[in-house]
């Protein structure tokens, strides 16, 4: 509320230079404790899960190694987070499952980004009739109950991880496309693009040299906020039993199984639930932090 006339901060000066905008953004992100916390948690978990995905013997047990005689045991010295009813080490399954969940999150977000950005950019840049038709198509897809859509895809093509992130990505790209289109429309009218036009640059060049870089802010923010949604969606699919193929685990699968036995073997819900919630928290914090840092408005449509 300090009106700009009375608080000549350093920001306006630095906005002019492109590279220092990112430096400035990084600085602002760095000042946001929650976002840094989120980044740290996500990185640590990501590395842990990735490492244990690559070398499954890290915890001394593999995610699929059973001990039927042992059955479900609470956390103890041998099994830090306890075991599930088949006597499998929860920590191993949690880390391995995290690898899968994060991978699904990353890939699905990637798919949604790829489709959404290209589609939105084309629609926004083309404008006119093409834009109208393309946006109509998005409206149609919005009106489809996506649950059935995903179920049908999973059912139709069989269950596999690859398919899962394609299916999820195929559902999640709509909002991305809308955001990108809006940004493109806004940027297109700005002077530097008009100048590029005037210089006779080719369309494609204008899109990729000038518009896309300016879209990065909203895209990064939205991607960060899409990941938790995707991970949550994966857990919903697991609830329906349409998750990853056994004996693989994912956070969704673990939480689903944990929720069923939460009264008898609470640790089977608590640890996976806590880790997933922590991850989603962190991703959301990070996304919010990025939004503030990159000064993206209305990125939630």
């Amino acid at each position: 509320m300090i009106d700009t006339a009375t608080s000549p901060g350093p920001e306006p000066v630095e906005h002019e230079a492109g590279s220092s905008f990112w430096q400035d953004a990084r600085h602002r992100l760095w000042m946001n404790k929650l976002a840094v916390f989120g980044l740290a948690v996500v990185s640590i978990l990501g590395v842990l899960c990735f490492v244990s995905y690559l070398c499954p013997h890290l915890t001394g047990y593999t995610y699929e190694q059973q001990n039927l005689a042992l059955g479900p045991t609470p956390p103890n010295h041998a099994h830090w987070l306890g075991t599930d009813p088949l006597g499998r080490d929860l920590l191993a399954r949690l880390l391995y499952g995290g690898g899968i969940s994060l991978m699904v999150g990353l890939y699905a977000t990637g798919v949604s980004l790829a489709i959404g950005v290209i589609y939105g950019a084309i629609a926004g840049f083309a404008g006119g009739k093409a834009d109208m038709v393309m946006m109509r198509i998005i409206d149609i897809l919005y009106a489809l109950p996506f649950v059935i859509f995903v179920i049908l895809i999973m059912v139709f093509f069989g269950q596999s991880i690859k398919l899962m992130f394609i299916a999820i990505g195929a559902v999640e790209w709509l909002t991305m496309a809308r955001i990108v289109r809006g940004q493109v429309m806004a940027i297109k009218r700005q002077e530097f693009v008009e100048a590029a036009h005037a210089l006779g640059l080719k369309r494609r060049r204008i899109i990729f040299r000038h518009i896309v870089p300016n879209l990065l802010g909203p895209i990064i923010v939205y991607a960060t906020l899409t990941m938790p949604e995707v991970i949550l969606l994966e857990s919903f699919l697991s609830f329906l039993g349409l998750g990853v193929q056994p004996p693989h685990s994912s956070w969704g699968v673990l939480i689903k199984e944990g929720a069923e036995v939460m009264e008898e073997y609470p640790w089977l819900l608590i640890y996976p639930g806590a880790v997933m919630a922590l991850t989603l928290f962190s991703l959301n914090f990070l996304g919010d932090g990025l939004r503030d840092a990159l000064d993206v408005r209305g990125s939630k449509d």
Partner: protein
Amino acid sequence: MLRFIARRLLETIPVLFIIATVTFFMMHGAPGGPFDSEKKPGPEVLARMKAHYGLDKPLFQQYLLQMKHLLQGDLGPSFKYPGRSVNEIIAVSFPVSLELGCEALVVALVFGLAAGMVASLKQNSAWDHVPMSLAMAGLCVPTFVMGPLLISAFAIHMDWFNAAGWFFPRDRVLPALTLGAYYAAYVARLTRGGFLEILNQDYIRTARAKGAGGARILFKHALRGGILPVVSFLGPAVAGLLTGSFVVETIFGIPGLGRYFVMAAFNRDYFMVMGSVLFYACFVVAFNLATDIVLVWLNPKLRFEE
């Protein structure tokens, strides 16, 4: 305005038509048929069952036939429940989902708006952090965990509610909370963001300069602009809320429409799938339209541009 609405409604027709077509072919393309079961019916029985529902005809003919029926407002019979039509099932189960959805919506709006407004007014204080952390939790805990947790705590340990069912007024409380929590969290975050932006506007300063008190500033000056993001979000969200939630209805044993969405697909109850998809699509279209109308109503600038 009326022309705008009429145009949008007209545009809906091809949208619905395309959705129906996509659904039809996806559904029929999926492996497995409506009458498959673990105990195989004899081949003659199966053939006659299919003939009874016209499933023995060529696919394209089935498609034309179904389109014809849809145009007449006849969603067809249910395979899973012989003797019941899809229209009847929707008619019976939709009001339940509608009621639950409304109650969840109230939960979402009351808690979400209140938390978001308080947080935006007391930015960076405990009044901001605590509700927003709760909201984040609401977004991060899957419904199928939240539901059983609430039941365990309040129905079984405290013994205040029934564990499931849809018979008494108090049976509404836990499902509405469970379903509303996610939306409340979302609304809270959007409200906070919206209000923060509005409260930084010059005209709020003007209002203060006029001597307006906190409540007046919040409700008279900031509300309209502050809830714009919430309204944009709620449009499609309400369509989803009112047409039922599979998870909540399953966990709480609620006879709503949400379960049919999913179960119909699992049962390959073709007509039921088509009926529920179209029903949902109509809702989405209607609520998107309603959202646009409300947005225009809230924002006179848009009205001017129309």
